[in-house]
């Protein structure tokens, strides 16, 4: 229980949490050892609104637009690192995200040498 952390992040990609940013987001969640759930930050922090973030259709169903805030809750051994990585995905403009993907696909370990 003490391993649960949360963060509110403003979505930067122009198309919102959709297409490639959404796929990168879900892949990051899937790769993590923590459970991750998300909701619109405007939902009064009610835990019943949290949706599992490891599914494309669930993330798509939120319809998160550019500039909206989402609340991310991570629970597990790598919760803090997972939140850092998800925040990076959500705050990277879409064109830059694509470039990073191209170079970092097969090297999970390249993320943070000083982590």
């Amino acid at each position, binding site marked *: 229980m003490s391993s649960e952390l949360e963060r509110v992040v403003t979505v930067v990609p122009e198309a919102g949490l959709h297409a*490639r940013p959404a796929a990168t987001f879900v892949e990051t969640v899937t790769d993590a050892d923590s459970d991750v759930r998300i909701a619109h930050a405007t939902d009064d922090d009610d835990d019943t609104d949290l949706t599992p973030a490891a599914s494309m*259709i669930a993330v798509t169903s939120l*319809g998160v637009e550019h500039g909206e805030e989402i609340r991310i809750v991570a629970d597990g051994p790598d919760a803090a690192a997972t939140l850092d990585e998800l925040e990076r995905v959500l705050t990277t403009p879409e064109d830059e995200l694509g470039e990073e993907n191209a170079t970092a696909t097969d090297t999970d370990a390249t993320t943070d040498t000083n982590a």
Partner: protein
Amino acid sequence: MTDTLTQNRIETLAPTEHISLEPPTTDKRGYIEFLLDLLVDAGRVDDRETALQALLAREEETTTGVGIGIGIPHAQTDAVTEPSVAFTRSDDGVDFGAMDDEPARLLFMILVPESGADDHLAILSTLSRALMHDEVREELYDAETPADVQAVLKEAVA
């Protein structure tokens, strides 16, 4: 979040001629073209080639196979005259390259004019939300006519 996909709107977005329960057995590209042709035949698409390129460009970015057996190819393009949704299904499932590796059995297409970014996201998110429910997917598998499918969709977004 705007939620513009209301019950009444289903009939405008997805009239029964946009719904086919007799698709060919084909691959992902074939299903995308099949769904597009439903909209072309219904008079919603002025420029088939431009619409197809927009749909394929979107797939190139990342697949619209969103998992749990659902594919929702979609695009914003002025090749479409008004927001439109098409539906078909694949009994055997078609490989959509989804992250969960599940073949797509329920296939939707969403085409919205360039100016309709909010509408596009609203339709996509409302449809996704509806399809997360097991019973909605079951009813779509079981639907026997396009009118049945339309009724399920109306109920699901209510």
